């Protein structure tokens, strides 16, 4: 009976921690998925360069970069270039909601890579940019 109880409690603990883990580790899940798709682990320095790199686009936004809306200091609020809407900081150190949901991260990488660079980002680019953002 004692064994059964210990077993039960251990199972409970394992199940619980795995739930917590799943909630808090959106970044890890995404990083792993990039690596299984062939990316090396993220390089934050390269990520920063990509972040500030400018690409050409259609008027009125002929010069585009991640920083167009999110600025170069990720701890600051950003501003949507077209609507002027305030965007919460992307730096996890000041905004705990940032990088907390895999679905959201995938969505914004897809949309914003397309708007900024004209096409989807490579898996390596995403891994590097993610490595840069998570440090902020």
């Amino acid at each position, binding site marked *: 009976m004692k064994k059964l109880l210990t077993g039960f409690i251990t199972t409970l603990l394992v199940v619980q921690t795995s739930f917590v883990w799943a909630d808090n580790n959106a970044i890890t899940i995404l990083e792993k998925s990039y690596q299984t798709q062939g990316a090396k682990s993220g390089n934050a320095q390269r990520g920063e360069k990509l972040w500030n790199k400018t690409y050409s686009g259609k008027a009125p936004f002929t010069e585009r970069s991640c920083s167009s809306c999110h600025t170069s200091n990720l701890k600051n609020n950003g501003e*949507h270039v*077209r*609507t002027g*809407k305030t965007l919460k900081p992307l730096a996890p150190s000041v905004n705990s909601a940032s990088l907390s949901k895999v*679905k959201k991260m995938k*969505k914004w990488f897809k*949309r914003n890579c*397309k708007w900024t660079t004209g096409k989807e980002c490579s898996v390596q680019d995403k891994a590097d940019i993610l490595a840069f953002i998570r440090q902020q």
Partner: protein
Amino acid sequence: MKNPIIISSLVLTASILIVPVVFSDDDRHEYRQRSVGVTPVSSPIYKEECSSCHMAYSPGLLPARSWKKIMAGLENHFGDNAELDAETYKNISEFLLTNSADNSEYRRSRKIMRSLSDNDAPIRISETPYIRNKHDEIPDRLIKGNKKVNSLANCNSCHTKAERGLFSEHGVNIPGYGRWDD
């Protein structure tokens, strides 16, 4: 009638009853006549997905045929990429189409519909004749030339109750200018 408490409570009751009659403006009717403005946004998914970049516009501001057009072009959504995954897309489309202006009993939705011809399917709320006429007396410097407004598309810059579907003049506060009275 000797008791001042009775008198004052009578006066109070009377004023509560009279106020809504005296002030016959839209918003003050809010509690009596629900269908004054446009339907407020009731879908949390729509709100979450569509208000990242702009105000979550009430579906009652455009007819279903307009929303269909907008949803068909999310890859180039007014110059931005607003693609959705299939499940979210379906959910949001359903919400927009069932609550669109042509399916709404709200007064401003009906006015918007009356201002459109049968086949008109504008994809900008600001291009519907009703909305355009409502704003035609306001000088450009207060909207386009106003850094805190920028565009007629930013309803909630001036319409402080826009998120609740209310657009009467009493809720208007133009940044740097103040109230607007016709």
